[in-house]
C-alpha cells in the first residue's frame, strides 16, 4: 500500500456551507492510551494495567470486523501533531468546525467504558470519559457539547451518572449504543430512561457496540459491509423493543435520537408495528397508542449516513413521513463515511426545511434555541 499525504493538511472541506449548521455526531478520540488516567482513581489505573478490559464479546483486541479505513476514519483526518483521527481539538476546528460553520457540535465518544463486564470499571471509565469531554473539548470550544456516556448494562450506576451531570451545560444528551446485552426496551435499562427524562435530556442511541450477541438476527456475517447494513437492523430491533416494552408509554417526555443507522426504514417499521399491534395488542396492553404515534412523537434521527435512493423523490417521501422537524444533520467526523454538509441534501427543499434540517431541529431538541 502506498499512502502519502500532502504537507498542508489543514485543508478544509473542499466546499463549505456558509450558513451555520449543527453537527450531531462527532467522534472525539483519545490521543494516547493513558489519556484518561488523570480522571481515573489509582485503583482503576492499576486494574487496567493488570487485567485490561473484558468486553461482552470474546475478542482480545479491536472489533471483530476490521474497518474500511484506518480507525474507521478519513485518511486525511490525522492531526499534524500526531495521534489518531479525531484526537486534536485544534485540527478538528480547522478541518471541520470552522470551514463548515458548525455552530453546535455534539460529541459522541466511542470505545468508552460501555459494554464492559466489570460494571464498577465500566462506571468509572464512563465517568472519566465525561470529565475528559469537558476538560479537553467542551470547555475549550463553546460550540461543542458532550453526550453523557453511561455504563449501559448497569441501569442504576448509569442513572447515577446522569443525575450527577444533570443541569451541567456541557452535556446535551445521554449516549447509548445500539448493540447491548438485551434489546433496549428491557427493564434493566429503564433507570436510564427515567433519569434522562427527569434531567430533560434526550437519549441518543448510536449504532455500534458489542453486547455479546451475533450482530445480525441470523448470526455472524462474513463481511464488514454486512456489519454496516446490520446497524439499521439493529436499530429497528431496539426501536421495536422500546415501543413494545412500553418505554415511551412509561416515559412520555423521553426523547430518543437514532444515531448513524439511517432512517429510510422508519416508515416501514412503523407500518408493520401498527399492523400487528392492531391484531395482537391484547398481548401488550401497556402499549396504548399505535406504535407509529410514539415513534413520531418521541424519536429524532441523525442524517449520516443518508439513504441515497436513485429517485430523490423517494427520499423526500420518507422524510415527509418522518417529518422535516425530526432530522438532525450529522457528519460522523472523523469517520470514513463522513457526510460533507454541502453535498447531502438534494435540491428542491424549502428554505425553512433546510434551516430546520441543518440547524433548527438540533437547537430545539438540545435546548439551545
Amino acid at each position: 500500500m502506498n499512502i502519502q499525504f500532502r504537507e498542508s493538511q489543514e485543508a478544509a472541506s473542499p466546499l463549505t456551507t456558509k450558513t451555520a449548521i449543527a453537527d450531531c455526531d462527532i467522534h472525539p478520540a483519545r490521543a494516547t492510551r493513558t489519556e484518561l488516567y488523570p480522571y481515573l482513581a489509582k485503583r482503576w489505573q492499576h486494574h487496567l494495567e493488570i487485567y485490561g478490559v473484558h468486553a461482552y464479546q470474546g475478542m482480545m483486541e479491536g472489533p471483530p470486523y476490521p474497518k474500511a479505513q484506518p480507525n474507521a476514519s478519513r485518511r486525511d483526518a490525522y492531526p499534524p501533531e500526531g495521534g489518531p483521527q479525531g484526537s486534536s481539538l485544534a485540527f478538528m476546528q480547522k478541518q471541520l468546525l470552522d470551514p463548515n460553520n458548525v455552530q453546535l457540535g455534539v460529541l459522541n465518544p466511542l470505545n468508552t467504558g460501555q459494554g464492559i463486564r466489570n460494571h464498577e470499571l465500566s462506571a468509572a471509565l464512563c465517568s472519566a470519559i465525561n470529565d475528559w469531554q469537558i476538560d479537553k473539548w467542551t470547555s475549550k470550544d463553546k460550540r461543542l457539547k458532550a453526550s453523557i456516556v453511561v455504563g449501559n448494562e448497569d441501569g442504576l450506576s448509569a442513572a447515577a451518572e446522569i443525575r450527577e451531570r444533570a443541569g451541567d451545560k456541557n452535556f446535551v444528551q445521554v449516549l447509548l449504543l445500539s448493540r447491548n446485552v438485551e434489546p433496549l426496551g428491557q427493564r434493566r435499562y429503564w433507570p436510564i430512561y427515567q433519569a434522562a427524562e427527569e434531567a430533560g435530556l434526550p437519549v441518543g442511541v448510536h449504532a455500534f457496540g458489542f453486547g455479546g450477541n451475533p450482530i445480525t438476527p441470523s448470526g455472524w456475517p462474513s463481511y464488514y459491509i454486512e456489519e454496516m447494513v446490520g446497524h439499521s437492523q439493529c436499530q429497528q430491533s431496539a426501536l421495536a423493543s422500546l415501543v413494545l416494552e412500553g418505554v415511551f408509554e412509561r416515559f412520555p417526555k423521553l426523547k430518543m435520537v437514532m444515531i448513524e443507522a439511517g432512517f429510510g426504514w422508519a416508515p416501514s417499521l412503523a407500518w408493520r408495528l401498527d399492523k400487528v399491534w392492531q391484531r395482537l395488542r391484547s398481548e401488550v396492553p401497556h402499549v396504548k397508542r399505535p406504535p407509529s404515534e410514539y415513534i413520531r412523537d418521541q424519536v429524532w434521527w441523525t442524517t449520516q449516513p443518508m439513504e441515497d435512493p436513485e429517485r430523490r423523490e423517494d427520499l423526500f417521501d420518507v422524510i415527509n413521513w418522518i417529518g422535516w422537524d425530526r432530522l438532525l444533520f450529522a457528519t460522523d467526523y472523523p469517520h470514513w463515511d463522513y457526510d460533507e454538509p454541502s453535498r447531502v441534501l438534494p435540491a428542491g427543499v424549502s428554505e425553512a426545511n433546510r434551516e430546520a434540517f441543518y440547524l433548527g431541529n438540533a437547537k430545539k431538541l438540545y435546548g439551545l434555541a
Partner: protein
Amino acid sequence: MARHVIAAVDELPPGTRKFLEIDGRPIAVFNIKGEYFGLMNRCPHQGAALCEGPLIGLAQSSDPGEIEYTKLGEIIRCPWHGWEFDIRTGQSYCDPRRFRVKAYPAHVEPGASVVKGPYVAETIPVSIESDYVVVDL
C-alpha cells in the same frame, strides 16, 4: 491546452506523488513504476482530496469464490468513502456511467525542449541538463 512543468524527474521517483494547484485546480501527479499520471484531486462524490487515498489494486470476481486482484497500484481509493478510480483514465468503478475524475496526461520532457517550448514552469526553475515531468491541462 497549456503544458505545465511540475517537477524535475529526480523529485518524483517511482512510488511517489506530488500535489499542486494549477490554474486554481487541485491536481495530483503520480509516478507509477516510471509512468506518470495526472488526476484532478477532488472526488466527484462529496469532494474529498481524492489523491490522498491509498493506491490499491482491483479486486474482481467472475464467479463467487474466484477472486482476481489486478491493476496493482493503479487504482486510487478515496480517503473518505472508498470509491475507486483508475488513475490511468479517471474511470470510477462504483458507477462508471455517472462518475469519473478528470485525468490529465503527464509525461517526461527533456530540459532542452522545456526551456524552449510553450511550457509553463509551475514550481521549479528549469535547466537544459535535466528532465522534467510535464502535465497537459
